[in-house]
C-alpha cells in the first residue's frame, strides 16, 4: 500500500488489516500517535487523514491506501512550530504530554475548518480526547486563542483571568 505520510510518499508492508497506529509506530517509526487505549476511546492516536482527524487505532491501513496522513510531526518542528503548537506551549495546554499529540492534531483540524473561539464549540469538537493532567481549562484557552488569531510568545506562558493571587497578611516570615 502507498500512502503519503507527512508529505513523504511511503510504501508499507504491514498486513492490510493492521491498524494505521501500528503501521505508523512500528513500521514507519513515527511515534507521536500514542497507543493510549487501542479501542478508539481516548484520542491519543489521532492523526489527519486527508485533513480529517481520525483515530489511527481504529483505522485499518488498507483503508488509507493512497491517502494523505499527517501526524503532529508533520504540523511543525521545534524550529518552526505551528500556531497550535505555539498556543499549547504559551497556554500550558500540555503537562505530561501523552495526550498532546492527538489533541494538537485535532485542534489543528478544528481551527483549519474555521472553528470559533467559543468554549462550547471547542468542547464539542474535542470532547473525545481525554486528558488526565490539565483539567482541559488551558487546552480550551489555547485552542480559543488560535481561533481568535492571537500571536504567541513561547518564552512565556499566559496568565488566566480565572486565577487571582493574594498574599496572607503578615505571612512571609
Amino acid at each position, binding site marked *: 500500500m502507498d500512502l503519503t505520510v507527512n508529505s513523504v510518499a511511503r510504501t508499507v508492508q504491514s498486513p492490510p488489516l493492521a491498524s494505521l497506529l501500528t503501521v505508523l509506530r512500528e513500521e514507519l517509526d513515527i511515534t507521536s500517535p500514542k497507543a493510549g487505549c487501542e479501542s478508539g*476511546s481516548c484520542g491519543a492516536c489521532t492523526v489527519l487523514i486527508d485533513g480529517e482527524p481520525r483515530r489511527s487505532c481504529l483505522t485499518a491501513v488498507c483503508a488509507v491506501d493512497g491517502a494523505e496522513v499527517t501526524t503532529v510531526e508533520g504540523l511543525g518542528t521545534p524550529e518552526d512550530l505551528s500556531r497550535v503548537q505555539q498556543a499549547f506551549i504559551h497556554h500550558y495546554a500540555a503537562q505530561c504530554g501523552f495526550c498532546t499529540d492527538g489533541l494538537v492534531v485535532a485542534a489543528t483540524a478544528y481551527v483549519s475548518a474555521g472553528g470559533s473561539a467559543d468554549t462550547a464549540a471547542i*468542547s464539542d469538537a474535542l470532547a473525545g480526547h481525554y486528558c488526565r493532567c*490539565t*483539567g482541559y*481549562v488551558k487546552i*480550551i484557552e489555547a485552542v480559543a486563542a488560535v481561533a481568535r488569531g492571537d500571536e504567541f510568545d513561547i518564552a512565556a506562558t499566559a496568565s488566566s483571568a480565572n*486565577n*487571582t*493571587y493574594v498574599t496572607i497578611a503578615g505571612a*512571609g516570615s
Partner: protein
Amino acid sequence: MAIHRGKGLATVEYPTGMNQNGDPSQAWIKVKPDGRVDVFSGTADIGNGSKTIQSQIVAETIGVPYDWVTYDNSNTDSSPMCTGTFASRATFVAGNAVLKAARQVRERILAVASRELEIDPADLEVADGAVSVRGTPAKSMGVDEVAGAATFVHGELLTGDGAHLNPGAAIVDPETGEVDRPPHAAISYAACSAAVEVDDETGDVHVLELTHVYDIGRAMNPTLVEGQIEGGAVMGLGFGVLENCYPYYPSAEHRGGDMSTYHVPTMAELPEIRNVLMENPSSGGPYGAKGIGEMANNAQPAAIANAIHDAVGVWVTEFPITPERVLAALDAKREGRGEPRREGRVVAFDEEMSINRFSSTITWGPDVAPPMCALRPAGGPSPASQDPFTGRLNQ
C-alpha cells in the same frame, strides 16, 4: 419535576512530603567551562512540571538565566537518589535538594571570581549570569568567564551537591498516635465552593462552577500551579460524580476496562473553574513553596455533595454521586425516611454502624450508641456472632 440549584462548601488540609525513611532527595550540579549549568536530579516528571520548577530554583539560586540550565533526570547512574514524585514532594523536598546544591555552586563561583577579581567573596554577588562587586556594578565578570577560569586557570570543577532529609522517620506511639517529630514537611490548606444543578426527575447532577482557594506557599511558577489546581479539580469532579472502579461495590463484577466504560471526565463535563491562589510561604520550602499537587482533588467531592443537599435536601454519602443514588435519596425523602433519628441530644444519620464493635474502651451512655461488645484482643478474631456493622447478634 424540576431543576434545582445549590451551593456547597468544603475545607481541606494536606501534608507536603511524607514520613517513611526520612523522605530523602539528593541532587548534584556541575558547571561546564562556558558557565552552563547541568543539574542531575532523580525526580521523575510525571507531567507535574518538576523539571521546570527545579531548573527555576537552580537558575534563581546560582544567579544565571533559566536557559543556561540543563536538567537531567533520565537515569539512576548519573542522578543521585530521589524517593520519587508522590506525596506532593517534588517541589518542596526534591526542590530543597537542588536548592542546596545550587547554593554550593554559587559559593564556588564566588570563590573563583574572588581570586580573579581580587575582591572578598562577601562583596560579590551573582545575577543574570555575571559576578559583580556590590555597589560597583561596573566591576564584574561573567559566570562563563568564571567557569573558564576555574577549568583552564585554577584546575577546578565547579560543582555542588545537596540533600534533603527529615532526620529519622517519625516514630508513632501505638497507643496514642503521637509522633516524635513532624511526619511531613509542611501542611497546605484549601477550600472549594461548588455550584450544582440537580434534576429531581433523572437524578442528574450538573456541576456548574468550582471555586477554589489554595494556600500554595509560594507560586514558584504561577502557570504551572494553576495547571495542577485545574487538573485536580477535574479529577475531584470525577471522584465526586463519575468514576468508580467497582460500580456495584463490594461486587467485583461489571468493571469498566476503558474510557468508554470507566468515566473519566471530558471537556463536556467541565464546569467553570475559578481559583484564588494564596501565598503563605512555608518556613522550610524552597523560596517558601508548599506542595499542593495531591490535595487539588480532595475538596470537590464533599463540596458537590453539600451543594446537592443545598439544592434538593438530601445527603448522598456514598461515592460517586450517581443519578441512581440521588434518586434513591430523593425517594427516601419523599417517603419520610430522609431525616436522621433525632432523640434527645442524639442525631443519628446512619443506624448501621460498626464503630461500637471495633472498640469499646469508652462507655458512651445508652442514648449515644448501642451497647458495647467486649474489646477484641489485638490480632485475634472478632466475635463471629455479631454483625460487624451494627454490633447486633446474628442468628
